[in-house]
């Protein structure tokens, strides 16, 4: 007989690396708790790995921690983790499955959507559940627009941007029920973990700087970078950059701020010619004072900056550097 129980549970795919839970896991647990209150269901934390059961103690915000351990899950690989998660989710379909929109989570969220046939909304900043209807708000077009979308079907997957929800709400102490679930056979995996590579030490550790002046695409050419570097020097800080500058090979990877670079929390962060894509914001939103200079008044960077200048950086930056030097 068909099970007619409505799907009310919320599930959070827990992200962890080298025995440490990622902040976004707590952010998602907090949001999952809020959604579970509305639906009246349980909050499940899905914890995969090898020798990770101990981490369940830190997941007190969940009602149940589903622990799945296997040799093939000892390190994150997109394929084995997706296969194990697909089996877990199929056996107890939640109303909403929250996955981090990170390097690890991207493969899982879209992979699960493809495998399970459940709809996916990516780059999610917020989600609401009312009268059984799930609405997801996703940040698209480089953070320039928000799309509010009604999700179809009884189960949906949301991949959540880091920093969208407070982590504190998901950091409850408590002793959640632990349910150990064996994974499906994982002997035919086509992706094998080789090793983790730690970031190489650069000439400057941008995570330890009190002042960072960061340069983005608006600088137009490598030859213009010294303009911004001079400002960084005048302020006694260091030069950092957004992803396109590093991808162009204009500055080394060790200077990159953002999702695939470094997370920085300086006392002062000056964003020069950086539009502020979600991936960049993720790495610098914790700075104490953010000043942004950009020609586009609609640049998303102005949504996180404290002070903004809508102007050509080539007009303002050299003047500012000169004034600081002679002050």
């Amino acid at each position, binding site marked *: 007989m068909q099970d007619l129980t409505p799907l009310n549970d919320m599930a959070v795919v827990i992200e962890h690396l080298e025995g440490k839970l990622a902040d976004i896991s707590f952010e998602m647990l907090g949001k999952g708790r809020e959604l579970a209150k509305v639906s009246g269901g349980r909050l499940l934390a899905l914890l995969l790995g090898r020798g990770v059961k101990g981490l369940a103690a830190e997941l007190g915000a969940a009602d149940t921690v589903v622990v799945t351990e296997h040799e093939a899950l000892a390190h994150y690989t*997109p*394929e084995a983790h997706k296969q194990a998660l697909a089996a877990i989710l199929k056996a107890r379909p939640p109303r909403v499955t929250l996955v981090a929109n*990170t*390097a690890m989570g991207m*493969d899982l969220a*879209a*992979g699960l*959507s*493809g495998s399970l046939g459940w*709809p*996916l909304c*990516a*780059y999610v900043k917020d989600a609401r559940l009312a009268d059984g209807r799930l*609405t997801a708000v996703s*940040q*698209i*077009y*480089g953070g*320039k*627009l*928000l*799309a*509010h*979308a009604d999700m*179809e*079907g009884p189960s*949906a997957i949301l*991949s959540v941007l880091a920093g969208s929800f407070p982590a504190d709400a998901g950091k409850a102490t408590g002793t959640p029920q632990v349910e150990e679930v064996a994974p499906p056979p994982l002997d035919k995996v086509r*992706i*094998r*973990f*080789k090793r*983790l*590579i*730690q*970031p190489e030490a650069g000439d400057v550790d941008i995570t330890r700087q009190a002042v960072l002046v960061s340069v983005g695409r608006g600088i137009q050419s490598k030859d213009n970078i010294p303009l911004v570097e001079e400002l960084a020097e005048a*302020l*006694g800080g260091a030069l950092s950059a957004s992803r396109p500058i590093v*991808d162009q090979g204009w500055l080394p*990877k060790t200077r990159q701020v953002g999702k*695939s670079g*470094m997370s920085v929390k300086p*006392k*002062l962060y000056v964003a020069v010619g950086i*539009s502020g894509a979600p991936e960049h914001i*993720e790495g610098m939103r914790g700075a104490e004072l953010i*000043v942004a200079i950009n020609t586009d008044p609609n640049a998303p960077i*102005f*949504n*996180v900056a*404290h*002070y*903004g200048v*809508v*102007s050509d950086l080539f*007009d*303002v930056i050299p*003047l500012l550097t000169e*004034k*600081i030097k002679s002050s």
Partner: protein
Amino acid sequence: MNIVVPVKMVPDLVEELEVDAAGHALDRSFLKLRINEFDEHALEEALLLKATHGGTVTVLALDTGEVDETLFTCLAKGADRAVKITGDFQEGVSSHAAAVVLARALGAVPHDLILTGVQAADDRDGQVGILLATALDLPHVSVVSGVEPAPGGKAATVRQEYSGGIMAELEVDLPAVLGIQAARAAPRYAPVSKVRQVMKTQKLEEIPAPPVEAGAGSTVSRLAKPETADRAEILEGSPEEVADRLLALFAERGFLKR
């Protein structure tokens, strides 16, 4: 090695994006499209792999509008084949639908390695590469910044970028789909003269898309600019005045060295 690079057109984010009167979608009447910048990295990595290991590079694109010049540019950069998949895609297409269309098209295109851009500005229902891999039952790795095929071409070692500058090295059996974050070199530039020449001497292949049922699995009810209560205080004035205000701000917060 046969490398396939599906590319897609996305709105140029440098331009102002207008929402249509209904408030559900972009107003496409004046929309300027350009190739997804991550796809340019995927193509660059493919061309570099071809230079070292031989083989072919085939570029595929759904005809979402303004796609011809992009495909000719890919040929001018060194791709061997450019295939336009024709169909009713002018109003945009969901990632799920694009993946199904590409999966069918790949039935007729040999592929050992499929490189896509890691993401696109408009892939609200997920990244096409991952959905394509799932449709083809191939392994996929996203956020890749280094690809090195093993001798014999049965596998490749790839680097997946995590946050904090940490990377994982993974070995992937081929064929596989990789979402490229950054090629090992900056994407090459094709001069306009070369593109024009290619337009005269080479042809785009065209294949019609099959009918596709797949949708995004969700319906956008509102598309709007973010409303932020704590938006930046914008400093107005001439560059001189703005620089003075910033100087005063930095002095007040103790950032000026004595």
